[in-house]
């Protein structure tokens, strides 16, 4: 009960911080919006190549752009824990009876919620530009849920790095270092069949590909449960590793 209450209080704290710094939310959306508006225009004719799996490049790339945003956003979530360590706020919490796990859960849930808000904005914009998901509102909700779960799993890595290094520079550098290589070597922006063989191989081991594929089938094919469930399986696996190591490092900090 305390765990739930405390998580709630901390979730609200992070939400207030998010809403009161709208500039940060705005800037975090600049990149995905540029991709959505410019990048998809640039590659519009890509859809005419025989064998392209969607009717337009926009509808094909939207899932990739959503995931790119979620991935980048999740990889910065360690910054907030570093800033709580730096300011002494983490210590201030630790000398109270507040639930230890709530400190972590409040962080994770609010990160997932932030990704949810960003994704909704991107989704609305994509809709205005003409991307119509075949699975309707229900499919959109499942897409958002999948993306939020994906974000949750990856924010674990960033939190672990933040706890380990206590340096926001390192968190930032690691995030930027990982984002683009992993995205380009996934099916985010290019169909698997169009890739050079070696990237195809990497992509098949890339957890991002599985999630993109799941969001994409919801966008253009329908409820293909096999693809969707394998994405959840992969995300669950990633979450187990990242959140496990976060928990381990966190316990070292709070012990």
């Amino acid at each position, binding site marked *: 009960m*305390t765990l739930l209450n405390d998580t709630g*209080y901390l979730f609200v704290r992070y939400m207030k911080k998010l809403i009161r710094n709208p500039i940060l939310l705005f800037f975090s959306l600049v990149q995905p919006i540029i991709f959505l508006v410019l990048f998809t225009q640039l590659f519009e004719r890509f859809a005419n190549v025989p064998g392209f799996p969607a009717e337009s490049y926009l509808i094909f790339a939207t899932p990739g752009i959503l995931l790119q945003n979620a991935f980048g956003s999740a990889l910065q979530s360690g910054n907030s824990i570093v*800033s709580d360590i*730096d*300011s002494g706020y983490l210590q201030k919490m630790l000398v*109270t*009876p507040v639930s230890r796990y709530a400190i972590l859960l409040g962080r994770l849930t609010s990160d997932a919620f932030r990704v949810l808000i960003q994704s909704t904005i991107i989704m609305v914009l994509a809709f205005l530009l003409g991307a119509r998901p075949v699975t309707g509102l229900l499919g959109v909700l499942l897409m958002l849920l999948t993306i939020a779960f994906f974000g949750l799993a990856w924010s674990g890595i960033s939190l672990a790095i933040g706890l380990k290094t206590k340096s926001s520079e390192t968190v930032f550098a690691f995030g930027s270092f990982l984002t683009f290589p992993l995205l380009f070597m996934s099916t985010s922006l290019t169909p698997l069949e169009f890739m050079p063989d070696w990237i195809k191989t990497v992509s098949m081991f890339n957890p991002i590909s599985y999630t993109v594929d799941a969001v994409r089938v919801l966008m253009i094919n329908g409820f293909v449960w096999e693809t969707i469930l394998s994405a959840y399986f992969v995300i669950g696996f990633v979450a187990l590793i990242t959140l496990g190591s976060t928990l381990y490092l966190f316990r070292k900090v709070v012990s």
Partner: protein
Amino acid sequence: MIDVKDLVLIYSNGTKAVDNITFDVEEGDFFGFLGPNGAGKSTTIKVLTTLLKKTSGTVKVAGFDLDAEAKEIRKVIGVQSQETAIDGDLTGKENLILQGHFQQLSGKILEDRVNELLKLINLENFADKKVRNYSGGMKKRLDLATTLVHKPKLIFLDEPTTGLDPQSRSAIWAYLEKLNKKEKTTIFLTTQYMEEADRLCKKLAIIDTGKIVATGTPTDLKKQLGVDSIKITLKNCEKDKKQAIELLKSLTGVSEITESGDCVTAFATNAHQLIADIVRALDSLEISLAGISYSSPTLDDVYLRKTGKRIRPEELVKTPSRSFGGRRR
């Protein structure tokens, strides 16, 4: 209230930050840890407030064992760390309420308590303003208030006035005295300011490089040094000096007399009582006095005697205290 026996803390890099200290703080005490930066003051507070695991020794805080009952301890203590740890994106009121939630308070009780505290620290008019825009003194006051939300029996204050302007400092002093006297809150405070320790603390421990070098009330500590000095200036020093010295010698309590620049200085343990006697005796001998004053040894003298060093806080004030939100992105 606090019982510490043979406490040792060695950091993982081998630094012995706390070296076998023993002391106790009674309920209602205003206890001070006086020492320069790096003496082990903050480390001791971190151990006592369950943040750091001690290497060895036994510690009881508020009647609870530090190892077995850390959770119970956290419910009855309030802790203000050296960094002003408040959330700049939240308002003053929100900061206090959140802290109350951490202490498992809610509803009307919490609301009332928060309003009471805001009034107490004179921040009612700023309650709904973002803390980011507060001045340093306001932040410090709010930080202090957040540690008091749950009416703790015992509060730990790690250098609560370091880096503050004199006005904010005396406001905090006045409030702490009130808290200790009226609400019977036991206070454990660390400081590097002699005058702060002298004014506030009923009992003091002087700590240097991890060891306690002296304990006692500020007055006792100064008495240990021995003596007050009485400076006597005579109108006609050359003529009357000899007679005056003879007279001083005959008074009980005077341990030493020297001829000084002003004329004569006597050292005595009970200067404040002797002054009247001296004045009367000189008068009866018709020696006219130009001035007489006495001064007690300062804590700085005590510190010098015990550690061979002088504390110079003005050097230490410059130590950059991390400003809130400095590394936010």
